[in-house]
Structure formats: structure tokens, C-alpha cells
């Protein structure tokens, strides 16, 4: 389908329509921090709540596919024990996802589909429609351009770019096409508008270059290959609070813990999973007391290898960091920034 135009004055109509027919999730401003507004994904209850010119949300949209906590199944104990699967299938539209977060979702799709597919993640993903938006602002710690995530050509149902006077919309799937057809007022874009989109996108990519790697991204796995014994790991890790923030805010972190919760009647309950993080001290501890990553240094280093090398060679064929900069922004001792770490490793190696 050719690129379409939604006039700014028609946006509210589109949003209202989506609200009426789906659960609509989108970016909201949740208050002012000393650095500016803090943006979060939440349920949109009026078109005015939806914010499309955010720089970066505090938490990524991964909660829609991998909630902080979810039931894997419910069960009943006693003489006739039984399990009942929890099948998430609530249709959702998420309005306003930046390309780097779309890229992260595509990576997570591959992770959860690999090997034994994860039905919970995939069911949620299947039931969700993604509307992307090209960024208008860059968060201070973002470096998505050098992670090749300034623009994406797939991984969305609709992709919008703000052209000032209107939004130009690319269709990425049948679902997206239907969404536009059923709920939006659109007209085909003129060739001028199509050209404007190209220049707007290269402008975005330039904006995103303000911070970045000093070397090509594809060299990261090799760089790490040579950096296992770098003193940098320990130097930084001595400051690590083992707070897991860098894991929890990351759109490509998906580790989880599993545990059982019983109701007070002690016969019914559910098996749940919740977010976990490899930076937390007990992540690799077993019942006998052995901790296979017992030092801050080993845990701190693991994350960079996991992002930069293990998943690259394992499932993704790509670095599992999209450059959103959230980990950098929220790590209190400020040691979690991948761009800083990779650049320093590179420096030390040269």
C-alpha cells in the first residue's frame, strides 16, 4: 500500500476510534523530573493523553508481551490435581513506538520463537497491533543511530513520521492496512510528501548520531572476544549496586524467574513468572549455596557479553542492544552505558 497521510487535525479521530474498538496503549507524560518530562506507556483514555513527541519512555513497551509478572497456568491440588493454562489473548493496539523499541520487539520475537516457542509471549504478541512513530527528539543518553536502529523497515503494523503539517504513514501488515481503512481518515501521500519523509528520516538519523560508537557495531562481538580480561570490568563493577535496573529497563532483557503462589485455601494457585535480571546477586545461585556468578564483576560483565556476543552468535545474528540508552540513564553509579563501555574497550584495545 502506498504511503498515506493523516492530517494532524484527524489524529484525534483516529485515536478516538481506536479507543472505541480496542484497548489502546500509548505514551503518556507522567510528570516532571529534573531532566524533563518522564514518559510511560499506559492506557489511553482520551486522545489528548496520547503523546507522540516524546524522546524516550522510562520503561520500554516489553511489558505488553512479557509482563513484570504473569501466570503461566492455574492449578488445583488435592485428590484430583489439575492445571489450567492461562491464555493471554486480549487484543491491544500500542500507539507510538520508536524504531529502536520496534527493533527490540523484533529481536524478542525471535528469542521467544526460537527452539521451543513460548506460547505466552507469542499469544500476546499475536494479539497486539504495533503503531510505530519516528522520533522527533533524542533522549540525552540514547545512541540508537549507531546501533542501526534509527529507522526500521519492518516489525510494525503501521509506521508514522511527523512531517510537521501531518503524519505520513507506512503500512507494514494486513492488520495495519485494515486499521487505517477502518478507523482513520487518510489520503495518499504526494510525491513531495514522500520526499519530505526521506529527508526527515535522514535528519533523524543525524540527530541520533550525537552519541555513538566510535567503530562499526558489527565489530562488537570480536571486540568482546579480546576483552574478557579487561580491567574495565572490575573497575566499573566495584561501583555496581546489583540493583538490576539496567536489566529491568532494557527492551531486550527477558530473563525471568518462576514460582508458585497458592491461595489461602491452599488448594488453588498459580505458577507465575516475573522479571529477573542477571545483575541481581542470586541470579545464578543454587540451593546448595554455590553461586556461579558470585562476583559483581562476573555479573556486570555477563550483561555486556550477553548483549554483544552470546545472543549475536546464538539466535539474533545481531547485537542485542538497540541503543535506547535507558540503562545508561537510570544506572545510579552511571556504569551501565553500553556505548561508553564498548568505546572504552575499543580504546584500550587499540
Amino acid at each position, binding site marked *: 500500500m502506498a504511503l498515506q497521510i493523516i492530517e494532524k487535525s484527524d489524529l484525534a479521530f483516529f485515536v478516538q476510534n481506536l479507543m472505541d474498538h480496542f484497548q489502546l496503549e500509548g505514551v503518556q507524560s507522567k510528570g516532571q523530573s529534573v531532566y524533563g518530562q518522564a514518559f510511560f506507556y499506559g492506557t489511553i483514555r482520551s486522545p489528548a493523553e496520547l503523546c507522540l513527541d516524546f524522546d524516550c519512555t522510562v520503561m520500554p513497551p516489553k511489558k505488553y508481551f512479557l509482563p513484570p509478572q504473569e501466570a503461566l497456568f492455574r492449578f488445583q491440588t488435592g485428590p484430583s*490435581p489439575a*492445571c489450567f*493454562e492461562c491464555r493471554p*489473548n486480549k487484543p491491544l493496539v500500542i500507539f507510538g513506538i520508536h524504531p529502536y523499541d520496534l527493533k527490540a520487539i523484533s529481536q524478542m520475537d525471535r528469542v521467544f520463537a526460537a527452539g521451543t*516457542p513460548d506460547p*505466552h509471549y507469542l499469544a500476546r504478541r499475536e494479539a497486539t497491533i504495533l503503531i510505530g512513530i519516528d522520533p522527533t527528539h533524542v533522549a540525552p543518553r540514547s545512541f540508537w543511530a549507531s546501533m542501526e536502529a534509527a529507522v526500521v523497515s519492518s516489525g510494525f503494523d503501521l509506521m508514522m513520521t511527523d512531517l510537521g503539517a501531518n503524519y505520513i504513514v507506512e503500512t507494514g501488515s494486513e492488520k495495519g492496512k485494515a486499521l487505517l481503512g477502518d478507523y482513520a481518515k487518510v489520503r495518499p501521500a504526494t510525491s513531495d510528501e514522500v520526499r519530505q519523509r526521506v529527508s526527515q528520516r535522514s535528519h533523524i538519523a543525524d540527530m541520533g548520531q550525537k552519541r555513538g560508537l566510535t567503530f562499526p557495531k558489527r565489530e562488537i562481538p570480536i571486540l568482546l572476544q579480546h576483552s574478557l580480561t579487561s580491567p574495565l570490568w572490575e573497575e566499573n563493577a566495584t561501583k555496581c549496586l546489583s540493583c538490576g535496573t539496567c536489566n529491568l529497563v532494557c527492551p531486550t532483557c527477558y530473563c*525471568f524467574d518462576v514460582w*508458585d503462589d497458592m491461595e489461602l485455601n491452599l488448594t488453588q494457585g498459580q505458577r507465575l513468572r516475573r522479571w529477573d535480571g542477571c545483575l541481581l546477586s542470586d541470579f545464578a545461585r*543454587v*540451593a546448595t549455596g554455590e553461586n556461579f556468578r558470585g562476583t559483581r564483576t562476573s555479573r556486570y560483565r555477563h550483561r555486556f557479553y550477553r548483549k554483544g556476543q552470546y545472543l549475536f552468535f546464538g539466535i539474533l545474528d545481531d547485537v542485542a542492544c538497540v541503543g535506547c540508552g535507558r540503562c545508561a540513564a537510570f544506572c545510579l553509579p552511571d556504569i551501565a552505558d553500553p556505548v561508553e563501555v564498548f568505546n572504552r574497550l575499543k580504546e584500550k584495545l587499540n
Partner: protein
Amino acid sequence: MKYQPLADISPYLPQWAEISRIQKLTESERLFEMHLADGEPLGHKPGQFIELSLLGIGEAPISISSPPGVENSFELAVRKVGNLTSAMHRLKVGDRVGIRGPFGTHFPVDETQGKDILFVAGGIGLVPLRSFIKFVLEHRRDYGEVTILFGARNPSEQLFLDELEDWRRRDDLRYLESVDRPDPNWTGHVGVITTLFPYIHVDPSKTYCVVVGPPVMYRFVIVEAKAKGIPDTHIFLSLERRMKCGLGKCGHCQINHLYVCQDGPVFRYSDIFDLEEAL
């Protein structure tokens, strides 16, 4: 969210198994013989593990201690260390438990055919290794010389006493045992397991060494095995890690780029010797 009864199979859902026999092995270890409630065989290979679950308590990875047999039953030996394992010890014959799996890689049952095998078990490491040892003894003619080294901290921690007794008597295998701390009745060898190595002779050109034990044991045993001339490609070991899914998803069992639940627990030493976090 709506809860729907199971239609197609989620890999997180356990199936039921019924306990048919319980045997006390030591003060802290018990053997459970069980079979799947639907009567199907478990379909495992020696060295694989299952996720054992008790609803409301949790789940834990447990090795399958028996070889695949003609009967559809299988055995688990559980050491009481925490919530799930303690709850297991409270169960009775006829009780049902949840099973997922089998998961993971298995011991090289085919590759070692016609070859000599040196089994080295430390403590509870005998539990997974037993599935391979019993398999080999059941197919004794398919394999060359068999040597078993078993080390326990003290005599009361020796497992599977009748089987050990059988091994001591058999003349188609060589069985050597040791304890770190003897009690007054112990008349056998005293010392860590590596002190048994001077007593064995292996032909390095056709010997495979299969080691299972606590993490600290591996480094020392591997040194001894290499000193006997056994190549890294012929050394196998089974590693333990924290596990939460068994599916290569939850991230807990990761060693560098490997997932122990999928790429292990049984590894060929030459595949992991240079991994920073493996041993």
C-alpha cells in the same frame, strides 16, 4: 485475563507421574520410582533430566537416574536441600507429581560403544551417572573395559548400597571407592577421589572418561584424566546450574553462549574447556 482449560500443550505445563516405590538411600536422599500417569514411556536417554514439580511448592531440575528400560517406569534420586526437595521427601507411594521433559543432552551412549569407559562419580553425581552405568551394564557386551570410581565425603553418604555391593563383586568391571572422612567401620580407601587415579590403568587410545560431581571436583579430576592421556574430546561431564524453564528462555542456566538446559547438562570437555564460566 480469561483462564481456559488446556487445549494444546504449553511447554510450561507438567504432565502427571505417579510414585510407585520410595526407597531411603541415605539420611538426606531418597529414590522415587514413578511412571507417567498416561502409561507412556518417558522416552529419555541416560544423562537427561526432567523438571519435577509439586503444585504450590515449585519446580526443580532432577536427573533421571535410571536407564531407559523395558518397563515404563523411571527413577529419580532426590537430595533434601530446599523447598521442593524437602516436600518430595514427604510424599508417599501413590502420590502424583508433575513432570516436564526430558530435557537436555545425554551421555555418549553410542559413541562409546566398543570403547573402554572410566566413570568418575563424586557424591550425588552418582545419581545422573548411574543411568549411564546401568545402561552400559545392561548392554555389557557392546562396551569395552569398564572402570567406576566413586568418592563420597563419608561412608554414610554412599548411595545405592546394593548396587555398589554388586559392582564390588562383579568381575566384568573394576570398581574403586573412597571416602574423604572414614568412620570407624570403614576399611576401604581414604582420600579425595583423585587419590584413586594411581590405582587404575587406562588405554588412552580407546578410553572415554565420564565425570559427574560437585563443581570443585571437575578441575581436579580432569587434570588426572588428562595425565592418563585421555584426550579432551573423550572427556564428558554433566554440569549443574540454576534452572527455571528448561527451554533456553529464562537465562538462569547460561554459561557464556551455552544454555545448560539445552546444550547440556552433558558436555564434551573439549567444547567447554575455554569457556570462562564453565568450570
